[in-house]
């Protein structure tokens, strides 16, 4: 029976080709607009590290002056001072813990004089970084605690930099010239780019991770520092302008993350932070309060407004756009089925029930919806291509549909066409056979 209805549906589509085409086009355009904007918004705000988003925490302390605290209210800074980071890293409660800072330096391959010296963004961090953020390696590994303590001159390259300097070959154990010093390559990363880049700063949310990684202690020992690239924030003037003065000052510059696998360790670590803050207050620091915060990945993204609202706004508008398309569709369907009332009258007169007519037209609608969905999927790809140009400053990974989004697109098209077609179909199936037969 269904094959018969399907045949009728195909016939019906062919009988009114222009109207059918318009209906399919309307569904497709509406669906494409919605899914294009939804894809971008979804990818912008998706969970960047699903396996650990509940167990990774950004550590925040309150070293505000009383005056500054009034301005900031409930919000704490997402970075802490270097001295606090050093002290907190001594805790053995977290499974993994990292302190992050950054710099900008030069990098070159001494054996390849034909290549230019690169200016690279440097992530300076502690050994747990690669374990804590589940960073994949192609070759080698990160560095160990011993290398960290010794401020060893080791470096981890991203895939991109390894491709540039070593043509993608295994470069582990080879040396590079980093900031005019000799560094040994410990590892090369595989492709790794969490979106959004939650562990960094708001201005950096949609950038790739930095080019190379070196131990934090190596940075400190060699004074690799530029305020421009280190996200330093001072509420009180440092004692002197030197680098060591900065490290002992109240200027915050370290972004700290800890991995706490369960509620119990989290509570334990929270207690540790509180007692640490109290101890520091006794030394005359933390004049405002002994508050501390542990923000998980999602809280951190919200707290710092790292995800722009623009994406959500566009989805809102696109949904309204879809509704207009569907209303338009509904008028077209009314016209389409109204034009077929003679056919309905005839079928009813030779014995088809109202249900049979209803099913026949519903199948036709589903066919139109499915065609609309397929065309919509193609248009959405086109839309995403255009958005890649408009959002040239965002990683292209955001402008890509995954399988579940593609399936959603098709289902949404089908659902919308059936929902908005329900009334026209009901009305058509209600046609009175006698009134139509008279006019034949």
């Amino acid at each position, binding site marked *: 029976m269904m094959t018969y209805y399907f045949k009728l549906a195909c016939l019906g589509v062919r009988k009114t080709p222009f109207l059918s085409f318009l209906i399919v086009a309307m569904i497709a355009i509406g669906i494409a607009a919605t899914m294009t904007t939804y894809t971008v918004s979804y990818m912008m705000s998706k969970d960047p590290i699903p396996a650990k988003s509940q167990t990774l925490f950004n550590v925040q302390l309150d070293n505000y002056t009383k005056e500054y605290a009034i301005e900031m209210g409930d919000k704490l800074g997402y970075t802490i001072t270097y001295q606090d980071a050093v002290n907190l890293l001594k805790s053995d409660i977290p499974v993994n813990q990292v302190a992050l800072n950054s710099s900008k330096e030069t990098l070159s391959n001494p054996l390849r004089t034909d290549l230019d010296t690169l200016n690279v963004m440097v992530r300076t961090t502690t050994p747990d970084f690669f374990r804590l953020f589940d960073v994949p390696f192609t070759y080698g590994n990160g560095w160990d605690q011993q290398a960290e303590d010794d401020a060893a001159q080791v470096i981890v390259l991203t895939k991109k930099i390894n491709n540039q300097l070593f043509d993608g070959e295994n470069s582990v154990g080879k040396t590079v010239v980093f900031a005019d010093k000799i560094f040994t390559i410990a590892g090369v990363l595989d492709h790794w780019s969490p979106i959004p880049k939650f562990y960094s700063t708001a201005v950096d949310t949609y950038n790739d991770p930095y080019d190379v990684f070196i131990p934090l202690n190596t940075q400190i020992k060699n004074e690799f520092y530029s305020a421009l690239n280190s996200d330093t924030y001072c509420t009180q003037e440092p004692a002197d302008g030197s680098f060591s003065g900065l490290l002992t000052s109240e200027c915050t510059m370290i972004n700290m993350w800890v991995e706490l696998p369960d509620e119990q360790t989290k509570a334990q670590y929270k207690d540790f932070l509180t007692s640490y803050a109290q101890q520091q207050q006794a030394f005359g620091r933390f004049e405002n309060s002994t508050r501390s915060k542990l923000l998980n990945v999602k809280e951190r993204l919200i707290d710092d407004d790292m995800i722009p609202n623009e994406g959500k706004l566009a989805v809102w*508008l696109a949904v*309204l756009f879809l509704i207009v398309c569907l209303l338009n569709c509904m008028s077209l369907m009314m016209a389409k089925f109204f034009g077929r009332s003679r056919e309905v009258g005839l079928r009813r007169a030779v014995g088809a029930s109202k249900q049979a007519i209803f099913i026949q037209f519903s199948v036709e609608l589903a066919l139109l919806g499915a065609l609309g969905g397929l065309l919509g999927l193609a248009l959405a790809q086109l839309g995403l291509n255009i958005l890649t140009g408009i959002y040239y400053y965002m990683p292209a990974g955001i402008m890509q549909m995954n399988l579940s989004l593609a399936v959603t697109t098709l289902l949404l098209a089908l659902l919308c066409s059936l929902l908005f077609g329900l009334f026209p179909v009901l009305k058509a199936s209600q046609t009175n056979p006698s009134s139509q037969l008279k006019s034949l």
Partner: protein
Amino acid sequence: MKDFFPILKSLKKQKIAPILLTLQVAITFMVLVNTAYMIGERSKKMQRPTGLDEANTFYIVTNFLSEPHQVIAEQNDILRQIRGVEGVVGATALPSLSLVGWGRYTDFYLEPNGNSVGFGGYLSSDEHALKTLDLEMIAGEWFVPSDILETDKEGTFLPSQVVVTQALAQKIYPDNWRDIVGTTLYFNGAPHHVKGVIKTLQNAWQFWSAVDATVLAGVNEAQPASPSHIAVRTQPGRLEEVMNNTVETLLKTPGRKIEKMSTMREVRQKAYKEDLATSKILTAIGVGLAIITALGIFGQARYNVSRRTQQIGTRRALGANKWDIVRFFMVENAVVSSIGVVIGLLGAIILNNQFVELLSINPVPLSYLLAGTVVIFILGQLAVIYPATRASRVSPAIATRGA
């Protein structure tokens, strides 16, 4: 107007189709008004001047090679080298620059321990800034060389001579902003003497409500750990050439690095890239929606014409001329548009309230609602003209043919 009641009657008889069209018009109206407003606000924001001669200005950040206490001399030497480059109008060192997204800000006080009277961005520079940043003095006086302090620490904490922008002066002295000249402003625990008022100088953050409120202190600052932004203004049209020559000149010093270099055009483009992208997407949605709705009106009218051929023929046979028929369809569309706009007005206000909360923007002003109404009417009339003229060509003879 004699068509009015027949139109209402026919709309009532068709029921569903006019309701669908009305809803379409309503939604289109509210989305159009909101997108147009958001695009308008963004373009207004993007057009604010920084105060600089943007077409002929760039900035450069270098490293420091000398010991911490000697960096100020090194910076002065770098400045001298740049000023010596052919085609340079002026060069001056600042801790940050307009729209670069990185800088200092501070609260202002009229008494050492009073209440804050405003906030704004902090920049510091020497007497060369007037020419380099293309500043326009509108009250008081510009720095003389003896006003300028030199420091290798953060200059914000030093008692200094300052000039302020008109926007900041107006915030602190709303009644007469000129009163600020000669007074003392307190910030970061130090007194600062206000020498004069400049017209415009935006600070580092384009998204900030206080982007136009800037204080420029007479402090030549060079911090070992954070080298200054050196702004360079060139003779008109020589920007690229001067940039190349500047780099070449500076790199003659062994060990010298260029940390950053960018034209003010690029800085502006980068600062407003999100606004620009959003504007483009909003435009696409608005235009797309207008086209879809126009198509809907067009389709509906055509469908009506073909359904009513008989009726039109009869009217023509009874003496209605072509214009009467065209008018009927146009007035019908106007009625549908009016109802749509009324519903849309309510919707637009509700939708806008949502956006106001979601995005902290201002409510849509009346002018946009009025303009939106006009646009919807014109759109509807344009879409209906072709089907209506086709209808007017229906021959009166058709009425005589049997159904």
